[in-house]
């Protein structure tokens, strides 16, 4: 890999300043994705700013039933937290469905959000990729895309976002805390991750130097009945073909509220807003779930070899909601 400098700032402000010091600075969390990309030559930072040791490694329950999650919290610790397991099973399940135990022990929450697509072309520097080299082309559109996007893609990029955790957080509408050159701000999810459009090289709305310090997951009592369902060829250690995070609030046989987000289908974790809208106030039946799923999946534009994801997503959405609906 290309030689790089390494710094370990004492606090967030120092980290942001350090990151602005070098033209290709990157933050280092658990390194489970970035170090791989450096070995592959996909990422070539000239400076690594190690933020894993900053004091953002705690999970705090707020008085109103919400959660404040530090950006440096390890994925395993978040999955094991009682307030996650008890009140937000879809988040715990999403975390535990991802990667391997070793990787979850190292990976941070902020790093998980900012991991890059696993599109094979993106990871191979001997081939073109608009996300890696803007304007070089997207071989996946005509090439191998069986596990790439069906929603929200563009003529420039059909990659998917690989995170499971981010799908559950998108269903929750988590708020991302950012410390940046211009101070602190919050970004809601969805909203952190972009769709590719004509600038697929930009994954998120973050600006240079922006550091994710944590997240707020506001209270969502009905998420105590929630679920994350991930479909993949092998039983573990694989990215989703399709995944569904869903929470359902049913009263007297009617859907009062719901949250649904999809993974493995788009450049960003995909909040199924049309589905949610179509389902609120409807009877909690498989027929309603299927109609609502169709309302969302009508937007899908499959590529030559990934149309299977539409019936797959539909079936898995319906089943997940049916299991939650009792």
């Amino acid at each position, binding site marked *: 890999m290309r030689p790089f400098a390494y710094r370990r700032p004492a606090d967030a402000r120092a980290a942001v300043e350090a990151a602005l010091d070098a033209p290709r600075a990157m933050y280092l969390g658990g390194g489970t994705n970035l170090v791989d990309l450096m070995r592959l030559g996909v990422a070539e930072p000239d400076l690594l700013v190690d933020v894993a040791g900053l004091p953002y490694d705690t999970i705090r329950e707020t008085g109103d039933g919400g959660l404040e999650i530090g950006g440096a919290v390890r994925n395993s610790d978040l999955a094991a937290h009682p307030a996650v397991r008890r009140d937000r099973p879809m988040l715990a399940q999403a975390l535990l469905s991802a990667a391997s135990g070793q990787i979850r022990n190292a990976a941070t929450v902020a790093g998980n959000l900012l991991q890059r697509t696993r599109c094979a072309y993106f990871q191979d520097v001997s081939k073109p990729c608009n996300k890696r080299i803007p304007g070089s082309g997207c071989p996946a559109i005509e090439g191998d895309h069986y596990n790439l996007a069906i929603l929200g893609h563009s003529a420039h990029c059909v990659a998917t976002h690989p995170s499971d955790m981010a799908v559950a957080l998108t269903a929750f509408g988590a708020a991302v805390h950012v410390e940046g050159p211009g101070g602190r701000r919050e970004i809601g999810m969805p909203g952190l991750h972009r769709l590719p459009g004509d600038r697929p090289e930009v994954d998120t709305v973050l600006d240079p130097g922006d550091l994710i310090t944590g997240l707020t997951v506001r209270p969502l009592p009905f998420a105590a009945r929630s679920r994350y369902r991930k479909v993949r060829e092998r039983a*573990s250690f694989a990215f989703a073909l399709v995944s569904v995070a869903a929470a359902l609030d049913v009263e007297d046989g009617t859907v009062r509220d719901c949250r649904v987000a999809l993974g493995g289908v788009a450049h960003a974790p995909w909040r199924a807003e049309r589905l949610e809208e179509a389902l609120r106030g409807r009877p909690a039946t498989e027929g309603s779930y299927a109609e609502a799923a169709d309302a969302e999946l009508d937007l899908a534009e499959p590529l030559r070899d990934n149309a*299977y994801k539409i019936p797959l997503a539909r079936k898995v959405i319906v089943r997940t909601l049916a299991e939650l609906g009792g």
Partner: protein
Amino acid sequence: MELGAPLDRVEGWDKVAGRARYSGEQRVAGVCHAVAVQAEIAHGEVLAVDATAARAVPGVIDVLAYGDAPALADTSDFELAVLQSPRVAYRGQIVAAVVAETLEIARHAQRLVRVTYDELGHDVELTPDHPGLYRPEKISPDDPPDTGEGEETPAEVSVDVTYETPAFHNNPMEPHATLAVWEGDHLTLYDSTQGAAAQRDALAALLGMPAERVRVVAHHVGGGFGSKGVPPRPNSVLAALCARRVGRPVKLAVTRQQMFSITGYRTPTFQRMRIGASKDGRIADIEHHVIEQTSTAREFAEQSGVVTRMMYAARARRTTHRLARLDVPVNSWMRAPGECPGMYALESAMDELAEACGIDPVELRIRNEPERDPDSGNPFSSRRLVECLRLGAERFGWSSRPEPGTRREGRHLVGMGVAAATYPAAARPAQALARVADDGSFTVSIAAADIGTGARTALTQIAADALGVPVARVRVEIGDSALPYGPLAGGSMGNASWGWAVLRACEGLRDGIARYGGAEPGLECRADTSGEIKNQEAYARHSFGAQFAEVRVDVDSGEIRVPRMLGVFAAGRVMNARLARSQFVGGMVMGLGMALTEESRMDREFGDYLNHDLAQYHVPVNADVLGIDAIWLDDPDPHANPLGGKGIGEIGIVGAAAAIGNAVHNATGHRFRRLPISPPSVIPHLP
């Protein structure tokens, strides 16, 4: 009696404690590191290699490319003629190498080497009607490509179907690694190989050196599955060239990604099966037509159709092999080459025939047992397939198998499948030396290879038994070409070949001790089995087995999981129950991957295998491996070899994918004829 006992691996503690040194972990003074630069076109010529930027990196020692690399004496095998010509035959071919003080520097500089090409169009996609299909002169290892006998007759029931398997990559845990050390005109290669002696001979020929001046050491090898067989892979040659060039020891470790282009793989296949039978399931005619690929760099004709030549009785029989020569990496051996893909097709077709005849698939196979080997006409040395099938059916609860597509448990369709397994049982000549050590213990030496199978342990047991002493008093030295000649670990022939020589050497030493009147240090006996093997009687020697699988197909997602598999094997005498079980179960797990998760995906535009790492090429993980069990018959085969063993390294994978595929059919009622069977293909066929 040590033979058969479930002895722990004799080097087990060394391995778990990190004391066992693999090739890439050997330490020598002054070592430097080489990294290969690979072609970024699939077909054409290298015009120029510009290493200016790479050479400017501090710590870079040299850059080798065609034109300035040391010459090889033998360039007849293009795959191994590394840096000897500007021709590029496949994407990923080695076109240059960077040697540097550290691995990190070498990898950094590798990316700075600029190679320009004259690119020609490439042809990388195997299709069943490829215009370039041809009949090879022979198929591996040395058999006719086509066979035909008997007259076709009108059949009451017929099956005519084509199966498709993708390319598969071996993916042993330890990537190929080499440490090349020249001392004057002597070369020592610490190399991750399945056969130190054969590797030495092959490298000596390539380098134009007498074999005595080359030594290959491979004390521990982290798996191979055929990918570390002989002829060597180009990385070993490159390491030797780099070390010669820079005049220092050079370490070259192949990356996982590079393994998808330079260390072999299993060809994709299209296999057409035609079986005609009477209504009661007796096969009249059977045909197996195989279409495979080979590389323009070197021909390898996988013998997928040979199983149909010997497996079942039939009045007429026809097998063919056709190859397309493509601009692809060199395909080669992967666990049970030939038998593995061939039995997937044959045993799937037998399942289809059973259904067409309305006969239980176990019974169908029993009805078609041949009396003699249909291929050679020789008697079988032993053939206990029927017992394997019957015992397996009873243990597995086969009688509760549902009608296709009828058993539903919650959100799952459940089904069972069966397939037969077979693998040849052969032995190759070997030599061994048994000796009384200074402390009165025994040392047995042979250039055998333990590629994770436990061969060192089994040989220790064989030696101890033959000497009549406890295993603790025997030390077996292997993995070094300087030891008495042993053939490579391949074709499930390792233990039979090495064990035979070890047995004879130890028997001889025991006699010598008796004659001398005591175990005097320095007493020794050498054995060579070539005469005995040459004079073996004419038998058809094969192992047999029966594979049973239960699958659960998720009706919502199409995900397939395998809660139970059972393999029952008749594979000769088992030398070590613990190690044998690992081999059988390991083969079955690999078959599970073949059936459901593994697939090397050809990138048609660029001409390489795209999913070139373990995150994208899905070998089964622990969570996929649920109730897999393997049992075996007590089956010493006196006609196989004096030990009665038949080899167990490969038969575990044979038939496993067919059993799972047949179970998926039983569960869903739909016949999937392309592997792997995974959600994208299953979803359209779910209720």
